[in-house]
């Protein structure tokens, strides 16, 4: 004898069991590559080549990591990557905010046309500007220096665009009120505008930071000596098409992934906060 209530609770339990099974499967799919990178970084290549057995973390050693650091000056390149990422992100965000602010609030003439020009620059594939950028950097005698890696990217049309869209939804009355109370441009931006557009601020920062950290071809193009290169370019030299030492490659990949992972774990709270702030507005 089953009561209807009992049946519905069984059904609910079934449903949640299925949901959890699905979530577990999703977690495995997402986490497996990370597991493989970190497990592989600590397992000798001879074991990794065994196939499935190589996935068991039973032969852990730091050997791969040590060999990777012998081939390339990883510490130095880590530092370079950090400098490049911080400079590129900070400048891109600052310039993005300033430009979008001017476009939206300053009531200048021709801002629409200016904005269209900005937008159209997003349609130009990066490959076509590669050589031109190289020639510019080269004529400034900056080839093989760290600033050459981030200088062409300190302003980004995409960041300006995203900030502009966010600023447009800011109520004009609030701004007028702030100005009446004697707030200047900077005070208004800092105390009123940015707190309101925090979701955009956070997502633009994260997008430009990951792009800066992951950059490969441009940094490769403008640097020559290992000491001026970023870690992404450095680890490229670890792998080769025909004779690959998988353990060493994974050790390099693990060292590049780790900082991003830490940043994401730390920023998770803010990320979630940012999303709800946007939802409740």
């Amino acid at each position, binding site marked *: 004898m089953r009561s209807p209530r009992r049946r519905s609770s069984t059904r609910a339990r079934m449903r949640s069991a299925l949901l959890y099974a699905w979530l577990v499967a999703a977690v495995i799919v997402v986490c497996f590559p990370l597991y493989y990178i970190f497990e592989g970084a600590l397992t000798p290549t001879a074991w990794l080549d065994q196939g499935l057995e190589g996935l068991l973390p039973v032969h852990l050693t730091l050997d791969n990591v040590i060999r990777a650091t012998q081939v390339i000056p990883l510490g130095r390149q880590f530092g370079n990557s950090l400098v490049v990422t911080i400079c590129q992100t900070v400048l891109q965000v600052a310039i993005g905010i300033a430009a979008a602010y001017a476009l939206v609030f300053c009531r200048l003439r021709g801002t629409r046309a200016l904005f269209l020009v900005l937008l159209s620059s997003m349609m130009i594939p990066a490959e076509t500007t*590669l050589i031109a950028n*190289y*020639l510019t950097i080269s004529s400034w005698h900056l080839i093989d220096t760290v600033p050459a890696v981030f200088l062409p990217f300190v302003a980004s049309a995409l960041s300006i665009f995203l900030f502009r869209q966010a600023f447009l939804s800011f109520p004009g009355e609030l701004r007028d009120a702030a100005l009446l109370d004697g707030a200047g441009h900077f005070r208004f931006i800092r105390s009123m505008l940015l707190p309101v557009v925090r979701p955009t601020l956070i997502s633009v920062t994260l997008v430009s930071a990951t792009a800066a950290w992951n950059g490969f071809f441009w940094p490769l193009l403008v640097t*020559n000596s290992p000491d001026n290169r970023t870690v992404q*370019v450095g680890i*490229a030299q670890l792998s080769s098409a025909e004779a690959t030492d998988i353990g060493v490659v994974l050790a390099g990949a693990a060292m590049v992934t780790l900082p991003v992972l830490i940043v994401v774990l730390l920023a998770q709270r803010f990320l979630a906060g940012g999303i709800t702030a946007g939802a409740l507005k």
Partner: protein
Amino acid sequence: MSFRKRSLIAAATGGALILALSGCAASGSDADSATASGPVTLTFWHAMSGPAATELDSLVSKFNAQEAGKITVDASFQGTYADVQTKYTAAVQSGTTPDVLMMNDISTGFMVDSKKTTPLSTFTDKDSSFDADSFPPIVSSYYAAASGGLAAMPFSVSQPVLYLNRSLVTQAGLDPDSPPTTVAEVADWAEKIHASTGAYGMTMNMSDSWMLEEMSASGGENFCTPENGRGSDKVTGLDLTSPTQVTFMRQLQKVFSDGTALNPGTDNSAMTSAFASDKVGMMITSTGAYTTADPSKTASKVAAFPKTSDSKDAGVVIGGNALWISGDGHSEAQQKAAYEFLTYLHSADVQAEWASATGYLASNTSAADTAVGKQSLSDPNVAAMADQLANTPASQAAAGCRTGAFPTVRATVIGAFNQVVEGADVTSTMKDAESKAADQIAAYNTAAG
């Protein structure tokens, strides 16, 4: 249609790169440092990664120690060959080309067309100690300059060979020590291995048309017309539909479509590890894969690349890379020092060491007489590779095709061949590829002028 358009654009871009190169005189940023008779610093861009990069760095340090106070070579890794080519193009325009550049086999046409390097023969003509016979004949003919002599210094040489997994082959009741010699026999063995062991019978590189080029050469057929680009005229098209080519493509079509052969797609390292872990009976790939394919050096048997006809021109095209000396904007002292560095890298001892560390074949025939060379050749598999290289005739077919449009047309041909292994008709599909490739080559030739 859109693919065709896109690949045409790609070919034209290749040509435009050349145009960009020739339209601009490099201003010689390094020239000032070398006008004096003091020490010369050479920049050297290479594309070696992994264990080969470590070995190259140690060879360079040895040279620097040997030439202390006179020449210092500053070697740096510049990414894949395609990356190096882009970077070189940018460097030509800004006048910051390296003194010595490493470039891969199939970019030889591009480098010659760019006219930014000094042919090696300019230096070897004046050097009485240079021995033109120190190269295997096919190596000299691959890098031959139009004006005679060599265009660049061959450095790393490789050839494809046939690897047999001893245990799988034996399980199938076959004798690995009397290996198949033709593609037809390889296909036959592959069926037997697959039927009796359940493992794949064979595999080969499928990421570009390289294997098809090699099998054309091993039947004495030119891959490009006219004359593989080795005569006085530029290449204008491909030849993919001679009876020999159609026959071997049908044989491959059968083993790929019935599941006997493993198609590794673009993942060459997956192919090598499948062979190393006993999942494939036979593998046709570069000599360079030896250490990864068979770390113990006893589990496999290396045999000559299978032939597709008994033509006397039949041979195996070499791969690898060569070293180019920059001309424009580089002083005579720098170029001379660069030549000295190249002669060092060509010396018998260095070539023996480079070959034993990387799996490339020595491009200096005297390397076999050095202690390191003798040690390497005591492995019968390495000896088989060296024999194949030494015995390759210097025929036009075996010299291989030379065109600056090569990187583009390779993608076209393998695209067509992938349709073939899925079951498309060989002759009509490859005819289509011929006409598509002819358009791409024409676009490159127009742009390159």
